[in-house]
């Protein structure tokens, strides 16, 4: 085990996989000569050369489509979006081509491609640069959606994504890139896609979260423990396929659930998880599932408004108390 930053764990995953398999290449804006906008790919140009670490113009639709074509023809591209906000100009390539070609060709083509980059809010970036995209992509059959919350998961899940023969939407977080954590040295360290992690075991209430907001959920859990409760925290890790069984098993035990989600609330991951909980374990619920999400507005710019916009720990803490009927 080594202590690595989140960005270093991602780099380790890509580097190890590219060393193992020379059909893998990295392409995106400033991934090569600038060493990556967030320095995820630092040093990779030097190691693998310009044929496998490729700078692109500002043309997401173009290089995404190029990646899909390359994947159809036997390569395994990693496409970096500087942030997922920029993926929207390439959305036809992702939703229609990457996601559906395997289905539409009757399995004649597979599309082993990873789209990765920073997702969600990262401070005062205003309305168009703070989008949490997971529900937009998770709604499309044919895409896998992965959202690690820590360096070790980032490495294990990115390696799994690169090795997967299907298109994977890999969601990182700008605010987590500098986070340090112990990361496995194993060159075949794979965390299977579609497996949630019980981050803290408890019996009083289940808190579900993923990505950056997972850390807020852990803070809420700490507060609950201080107040004498025993919360369970689940880090979804993969959005799709959703590991609903881990969630429902937890709810069977705790009978209550609060979901924290950085997405806007309407038709979001939290909506889906809440729906599936009531569908599967209705008779085990002692209180309604409560969601704590970003506000249902575009992200504001002002700091005070942005703080208010994000799913707050205080709101989540109060939601947990309500769910336990202790307010």
């Amino acid at each position, binding site marked *: 085990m080594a202590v690595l930053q989140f960005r270093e764990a991602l780099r380790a995953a890509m580097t190890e996989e590219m060393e193992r398999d020379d059909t893998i290449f990295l392409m995106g804006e400033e991934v090569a000569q600038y060493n990556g906008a967030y320095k995820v790919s630092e040093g990779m140009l030097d190691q693998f050369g310009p044929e496998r670490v490729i700078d692109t113009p500002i043309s997401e639709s173009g290089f995404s489509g190029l990646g899909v074509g390359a994947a159809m023809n036997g390569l395994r591209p990693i496409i970096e979006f500087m942030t997922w906000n920029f993926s929207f100009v390439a959305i036809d390539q992702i939703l229609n081509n990457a996601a559906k070609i395997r289905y539409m060709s009757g399995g004649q083509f597979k599309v082993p491609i990873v789209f990765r980059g920073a997702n969600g809010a990262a401070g005062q970036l205003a309305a168009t640069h703070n989008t949490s995209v997971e529900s937009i992509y998770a709604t499309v059959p044919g895409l896998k959606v992965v959202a690690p919350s820590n360096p070790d998961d980032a490495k294990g899940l990115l390696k799994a994504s690169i090795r997967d023969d299907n298109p994977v939407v890999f969601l990182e977080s700008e605010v987590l890139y500098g986070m340090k954590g112990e990361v496995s040295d194993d060159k075949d360290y794979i965390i299977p896609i579609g497996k949630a992690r019980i981050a803290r075991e408890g019996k009083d209430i289940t808190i579900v979260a993923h990505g950056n907001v997972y850390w807020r959920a852990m803070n809420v859990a700490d507060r609950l423990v201080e107040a004498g409760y025993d919360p369970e925290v689940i880090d979804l890790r993969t959005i799709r396929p959703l590991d609903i069984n881990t969630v429902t098993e937890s709810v069977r035990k705790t*009978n209550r659930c609060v979901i924290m989600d950085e997405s806007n609330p309407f038709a979001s991951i939290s909506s889906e998880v809440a729906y599936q909980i009531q569908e599967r374990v*209705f*008779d*085990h*619920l*002692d*209180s309604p599932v409560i969601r704590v999400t970003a506000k249902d507005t575009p992200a504001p710019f002002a700091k005070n408004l942005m703080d208010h916009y994000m799913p707050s720990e205080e709101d989540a803490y109060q939601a947990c108390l309500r769910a336990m*009927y202790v307010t």
Partner: protein
Amino acid sequence: MAIPIEMPKLSDTMEEGVVVAWLAEEGQKVSAGDIIAQVETDKATMDLEIYDDGFLLKRVVGEGDSVSIGGLIAVLGDEGEDISSLLAEYSTGNNGSARDSGHTSSDDQADNKSSKAGAAGAPAATPAETVEEISALVQSGGEAKILPPSSSGRNISEKSTSEKSMSGRSMSERSMSERSMSEKSMSGSRVKASPLARRLASERGIDMESVRGSGPEGRIVKRDIESYVPAPMKTEPVFAPKRGRTDLPAGSDSYTSLPLSQMRKAIARRLAESKFKSPHFYLTADFDMRKAVAARIQLNELAARREQQKVSFNDLVTKSCALALRDNKWVNASYLEEEGEIRFHDNIDVAIAVAIDEGLITPIIRNADAKSLGQIAAETRELAARARKKELQPEEYSGSTFTTSNLGMFGIDEFTAIINPPNACILAIGAVRDTPVVENGQVVAGKRMKVTLSCDHRVVDGAAGARFLASVRQYLEDPLSMLL
């Protein structure tokens, strides 16, 4: 036009009701036929239905609050309407007069606003008439003023009702609106409970009606089921020895408390009243049941062939009593102090005490003298089954003229019962037992059954009671005479 919703009289013996759950929010739009609350009476938890459209402007009392008949529970009206004068009217003690005086109030405020205080309230003798009470209308002044919550409060004046429980004619029991309530649950909420609480209650056989919810708006949640203490009758045998806890030092007190249910209170009140007010005396007779035993065997062979309900000894006693009551009008009577009369009932309506989980209830075989044994058997079984399921309607257990109580199935040879007012008598029936009897100087095997008649001496004198028992004896000892 503000409409006061008053505590209706939901049973003969009801004097007050407890609002156990609100099913509508303040400010909510409601329509005629909506159930806005549940009211626990001495007999049952019943739905409070409204008969007008409008907005629920005010919930005057909270959940768990007890309100006398005629007391104000809620106010309906138009959105934003001023109800302060109406509330003032009730808070100054004029409420509850609707039933007695025929109009609700001559309160100054209401008059000043030249509003018509027209309440169409009539004394409610049967539950059906409560419609008038509930919909008694009062028009209040119309100044738009929002009443501060503090002045609305819980101004339920303590109306001392002149309604005497003696006018009720059945023993105190819990009644049985559950069936109708579960029907209503298809369309709206009733007992609020989390899915988990419902499942746990169902697994543990806990009646959700008897659980008090601690969640928002009285929602029953997991902890309410887990901390639920069932009524002692359910769990403890009647003659359970006193449990001593050995881990406690001598002299320390260990117990479980069960709050008095409305039913328990009603039993206590009415039976104490009966025992104190009506001087009881007791007549015991020992009947020869050999012919009745033989007749019953024959009857049941017939019944089996016709696929009819089997006839029990109790059915034979019911029929015998009913026939004997025809000839003994003093036993089929009521002593009515208020009215200054003894009332001889034309109908012979025999109530039969049925033990249920929460206490007991006395469903009635109406006109039992005119019914065949087969009818009595079928009807008794059907009523008892529904009684245990708490599905009886008030009219099915109110208004008997005579009552029987049978503990024979528990091996009780004889006992005395407390008269079920306003009956004049109650017959306590013991077990049919094998016993040696002397006949023509010889000891032979006999079948005997002891009965004890409790008589209200204000109506029934010793000789009258004895004549009635002689009549019953004649029918039971010669069952064919029931057919004549």
